[in-house]
């Protein structure tokens, strides 16, 4: 019983971190209708900025966190401006954006390989990881609880932003139809930059927590493939779907690792993808895009 509860909490905690990444990715998809493969790069940027700030300026997680979120957000905006904006202004073939994002993800990853080296780095232990006893039922680590809480806070903040703010309304309109939103007076370029900034920030938060969990290395961005799977399972373009999909994924992974085998956890993730694609390709909450004939 104790182990089950532990794995459940682990799963939800991991899932909530995935959710941060998946939501940012789904947000970009809902507006521009393409998979930003460079999303993992934002995650890694967040992780490394946090690491370097912590080691250089002392162990203040707030400063380091703030800088890394800001840095990742800016990097995301820059990526969009440099690589995607010129393409989407000239053509609406999303394949080109897809390939460009692939290129950017490789560039970002390898910049860190060259600059920071391929070693695994442990973040200075600012985020508490000590065991916490829950209601006498089970033991979990403060880290798991913290990542759950932080993810919840950020996702709620995002939800409020989208539902209550003016730009949030603009984003919802653009997610429905980007061109029309532009015709209605929304500054599309500004909107896209804001979306990418938000996506970068969310990815950075996820990146920091993942760096603590798995240690930091340039290829950590590869873990976003799981967030992609989560977004697909939940339905590409749907934010609640991304969250639900991530939780399912996190739980599936942790339960497999805990009760079956650690080796198989990744295979379980991909099996979930296959099952979703076979049974309901648009995911749990996704909409099938209808083309006007």
């Amino acid at each position, binding site marked *: 019983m104790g182990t089950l509860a532990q794995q459940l909490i682990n799963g939800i905690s991991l899932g909530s971190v995935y959710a941060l990444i998946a939501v940012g990715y789904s947000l970009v998809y809902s507006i521009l209708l393409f998979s930003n493969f460079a999303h993992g790069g934002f995650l890694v940027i967040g992780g490394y900025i946090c690491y370097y700030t912590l080691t250089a300026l002392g162990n203040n997680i707030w400063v380091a966190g703030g800088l890394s979120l800001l840095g990742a957000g800016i990097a995301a905006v820059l990526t969009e401006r440099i690589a995607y904006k010129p393409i989407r202004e000239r053509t609406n073939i999303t394949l080109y954006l897809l*390939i460009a994002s692939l290129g950017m*993800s490789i560039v970002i990853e390898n910049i860190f390989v060259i600059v920071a080296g391929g070693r695994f780095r442990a973040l200075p232990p600012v985020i508490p990881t000590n065991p916490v006893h829950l209601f006498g039922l089970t033991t979990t680590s403060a880290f798991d609880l913290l990542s759950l809480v932080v993810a919840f806070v950020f996702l709620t903040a995002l939800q409020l932003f989208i539902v209550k703010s003016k730009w949030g309304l603009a984003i919802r309109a653009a997610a429905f139809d980007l061109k029309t939103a532009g015709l209605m007076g929304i500054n599309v370029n500004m909107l896209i930059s804001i979306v990418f900034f938000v996506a970068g920030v969310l990815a950075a938060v996820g990146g920091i927590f993942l760096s603590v969990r798995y240690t930091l290395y340039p290829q950590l961005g590869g873990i976003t493939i799981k967030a992609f799977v989560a977004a697909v399972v939940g339905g590409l373009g749907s934010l609640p779907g991304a969250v639900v999909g991530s939780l399912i994924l996190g739980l599936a992974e942790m339960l497999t690792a805990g009760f079956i085998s650690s080796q198989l956890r*990744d295979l379980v*993730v991909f099996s979930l993808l296959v099952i979703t694609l076979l049974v309901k390709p648009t995911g749990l909450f996704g909409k099938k895009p209808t083309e006007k*004939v």
Partner: protein
Amino acid sequence: MGYIGGIIILLCINAIAVMGVSLLTGFTGIFTLGHAAYMALGAYTAGILTVEHGVHWFLAIMAGGLLAMIVAYLIGIPTLKLMGDYYAIASIGLVESIRLILENWQSVTRGARGYPGIEGFTTLPVAVAFFFVLAIIMVNLINSRYGRAFKACRDDYLAASLLGYNTARYRVLSLAVSGFYCGVAGALLAGFMSFIQPVMFDMMKSTELTSMVVFGGLGSLSGTLLASVIITLVTELFRPISQYRMLIYGGVLVAIMVLRPEGIMGSKELWNLRRKR
């Protein structure tokens, strides 16, 4: 064998794989990063068959291609209903899954440490012969009603279906042929390096092949071959700074998409350029 001989063999192997990718991505419009998985299947099949079962290398290579083709076909049927990004993600999942299986199924594949001792059956004549035959077949396929069907699926699959084409069937067919080519390339690679490891068939390999197709021009076979020659040679020349290799690949991909998405040749073929229009 000589250094130059080795380069030519590598060129031929890459060219075969890249023709498969060109068919799928350039001519049928299916963006995928799964090709390394099919190369892996071909390589391990050929390796295991020649080393442990004494199968003749030619049969082993064909078996490798066939296995890759069958797996591609089986996976393609459910997944190719998806369009665009969904399929791209699925293909990444495929590569990773196959690499995981290869690493963990130690009894068959010897795991992450690799599979050694494969006979060096990929000599210069073998590689060149396979390349020529497969190239001719690919050119033929594209200059046939199948080529028109693939291009229709790429350019407007809705219009294609309203011309009576079962687009799903043609997409799966394209994937199967592409799988065969990648499988054969993988098998030839196994016979060239005499040693294969799962990590040789990872996302980097897939990305390398995709960037060759993009660089050469989506929809141009000659462009793809040209690009594969250029990139393979450049890779060899810059082996000393290979850590920058991936950085440059990434940069080139972005640059091409921003500056000249149609690549070197666009959708024209070298051999058609002089024809008067």
